């Protein structure tokens, strides 16, 4: 015990000195991290995105419901949060509705198609290809597509619920158009694994639930492709607007019986509000 006390006596001031040094180092490191975060925040550009396609074109070929292809027009409303960082982009998207009224070749046959989706995309800057910024990343999404064909009585309501993990990539370049800096971007998403749920045909409310399938690439196919031009809004350097053309197509074969193909084309206009 006495030896222990003896051993501790001369170490007291040294330990205190070492503690204060470490404390100072920790504080410095924390401040450095904070300032790095602050710098990162300063470099991060965040937008609230409000988007609409006053008119879009939809195609549905659901061979459980009908043998013919249905086509029609509708409208689309989407909102989201889009942020650009030095390392890449984050895009949280909520497709509130993509609603269309479709008709078969016999124009008296009607179908209503309503599509909703929530997704998150992260695209990391990979490299420059000349003037083009290549970004690669992924998308996680959950979508619901409701098709209602009143002529089909108790089979009139069909619902697909699909959760997907997709590979995503984009190309973007900036150029001057009409004296303003403009960007053109093209983005592609292809799910590599999905979980597909489909309501049984019988319209038995509360019975049977969703028939669901794990669907790796090949069993469930989806391609989301979007090309858009983004320009500053008015004299503001903060806000922007974007005009984009998007094509969204998915297909799967249910129970080895029925082919389902759904495609949508939309020419949309978006307002990007910086905050």
């Amino acid at each position, binding site marked *: 015990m006495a030896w222990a006390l003896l051993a501790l006596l001369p170490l007291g001031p040294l330990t205190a000195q070492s503690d204060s040094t470490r404390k100072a180092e920790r504080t410095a490191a924390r401040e450095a991290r904070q300032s790095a975060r602050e710098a990162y925040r300063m470099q991060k550009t965040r937008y609230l995105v409000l988007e609409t396609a006053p008119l879009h074109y939809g*195609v549905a*070929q659901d*061979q*459980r*419901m*009908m*043998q*013919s*292809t249905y086509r029609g027009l509708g409208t689309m409303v989407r909102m989201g949060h889009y942020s650009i960082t030095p390392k890449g982009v984050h895009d949280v998207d909520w497709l509130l509705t993509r609603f269309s009224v479709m008709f*078969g*070749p*016999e124009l*008296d*046959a009607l179908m209503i198609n309503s599509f909703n989706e929530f997704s998150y995309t992260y695209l990391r800057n990979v490299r420059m290809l000349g003037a083009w910024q290549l970004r690669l990343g992924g998308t996680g999404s959950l979508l619901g597509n409701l098709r209602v*064909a009143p*002529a*089909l*009585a*108790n*089979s*009139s309501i069909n619902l697909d619920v699909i959760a997907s993990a997709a590979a995503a990539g984009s*190309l973007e*370049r900036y*150029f001057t*158009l009409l004296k303003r800096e403009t960007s*053109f971007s*093209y983005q592609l998403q292809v799910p590599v694994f999905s979980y597909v749920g489909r309501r*049984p*045909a*019988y319209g*038995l*409310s*509360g*019975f*049977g639930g969703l*028939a669901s399938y794990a669907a790796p690439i090949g069993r469930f*196919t989806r391609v989301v*492709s979007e*090309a858009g*031009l983004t320009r500053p809004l008015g004299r503001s350097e903060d806000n922007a607007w974007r005009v984009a*053309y*998007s*094509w969204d*197509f998915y*297909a799967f074969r249910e*129970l*080895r*019986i029925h*082919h389902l*193909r759904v*495609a949508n*084309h939309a020419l949309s206009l978006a307002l990007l509000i910086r905050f």
Partner: protein
Amino acid sequence: MLRTLTLLSAAILLSSCEQLFLKPEPGTAPSAIFDEAWTFVDREYAFFKYKGIDWNEVRSRYEPLISDGMSEEDLFDVLASMLYELRDGHVNLSSDFDISRNWTWYLNSPQNFNFTVLERGYFQEKEQYAGPFILYDFGDVGYMRYASFASTVTPADLDYVLEKFADRKGLIIDIRDNDGGSLANVNLIASRFTETEVTIGSWSFKSGPGHEDFTPLEDIVLEPAEGLLGVEPKRFTKPVVVLMNRSSYSAANFFPLYMKALPQVTLMGDTSGGGGGAPANTQLANGWVLRCSSSRLFDPQGFNVENGIPPDVRVDLDPADEAAFRDTMLELALFTLRR
């Protein structure tokens, strides 16, 4: 700039290629429509084996009757005859000018229901129309007629009926000539007659193109009705007689399946009409709508109820009773509940 516009154009063109993936638009010639109809039934119909039907053999008899120059009506008649071979009330082809059907399940049996007898022999303008139900109070026994499971039932309707008859010895539920409708209504009504969960049967669905491709059997469980906002729903656990005839079809075939699993319930009358297979519908390329049974329904003992559910007490309307405005089934139900 030019390169950008080129890329933009290429992206748009590449993005519009769903035509590559879409199946070719089906033809509307009679031979194509015949093929569509036969194929849909071949893949969806649930009872080929149960009914011993060789669908390929059926095709071989009807296909030669099809020619691309035939009229719409003639094509409809050939398809209707082919579908008639399935002997199934849930198999119909609907066009603008007709609906193909097989109603032999009740046309070859006694009708066992006459509303005039009820009106003149019993109700005499004293009946009550409460929501989708016709109610009549025999004093010691309540009577509730439900003419169609397509008529919407609300919890409030059921609360009213069961409160009204709460003090009676028993209740008669008359589903004769009820040709079905929504299974949600079946569940809603039956859930008022039990205080515990009851397995009422099982079912399975087509799961592939083969005639015997089905999902595993799945139990159907009747759960007691739940209250709203802490208010307990009205229930009836005293004796109940369900009156049925061969025209009690589809959802009105499910209802006795649910009710016979309950200890206080007696099924009375004729075997129900059947229709245990839930129908799947599709629209053919010419706009006609085709439906066929695409699931199988079994009672807890594994009995396939496609052709109906036998009653616990078999009784027909006696013509002499009918002539005197007496309903033989109703009288036996009253006698049973008053004992």
